[in-house]
């Protein structure tokens, strides 16, 4: 999946991969994170 130029909504998991980590991943792939939150779904 090529995220370059895409807008990304991040929903992270407190007990897994959280929002800030997903933001780093998305931005490293040249995506723009428009919203980021960490939930707890466990």
């Amino acid at each position, binding site marked *: 999946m090529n995220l370059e130029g895409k807008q990304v909504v991040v929903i992270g*998991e*407190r*007990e*897994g991969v*959280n*929002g*800030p*980590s997903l933001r780093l991943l998305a931005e490293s792939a040249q995506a723009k994170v428009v919203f980021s*939150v*960490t*939930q*707890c*779904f*466990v």
Partner: protein
Amino acid sequence: MTSAPTGADIKAFCAAPVHALITAGAMVASGLYQYVVVLGGASQAKIGMKFRAHLRNGVPIMEDTLAGMAFVVGPDNGDGMKIRLDLTGKHPIGAGSSSQAVYQSLVVAPLERAGLTMTDVDRYAVEMHNPEITEPGDSGDVPKTNYRTLAAMAVLRGEIEREDMDEFVAARGMPGFSQTQGHIPAGVPYLGHAHAAMRRGELSRAMIVAKGSLFLGRMTQLVDGVSFVIEPSEGMNKT
């Protein structure tokens, strides 16, 4: 006791039991009250929360328990566990919300203040969800993930070698055993077991950790959490 008791709620979602025990300890230590009972139950609204994942994976709806717990906090009677109020951890605003930042605040910082290392704690109790329930619910093994994060931090701090991570997890962690919904959160399900282990002389220091979530209350996006250390009373009976 010379008068009837009163009570109040401490609302902190999955960190609530640990906040409540620290608050109870502080009340007793200050002389405000002699005995404080910390008691709580499960969230009825979360029963069967992951039912779709469980049914999709061919298992019954296992989140079907309403659990309860109670602890008595009071003066040292020689057979209890001391709450080390000088070794509490918190996750302060601005600390960052990565897993490493959370555990740096909750676990490492209070130990550093006391001149202790992560290997000076015999056992850590984190969110103790039973993986037999969470793995078919597509949530992974929560305690194991947390323990491996702690082990990785111990490696980064030079306290253990990388090849000793599995041994750290086995020796200082434990398999998850708590019901998930409605669950008793954080590390407090371990407290009864810790007491028994201290009576047997097998445990000299444990850390009870909670990772909470202000975001569950939709107050902020911040993570919150607290921790405390427990040790045997000086004159603990060993039976």
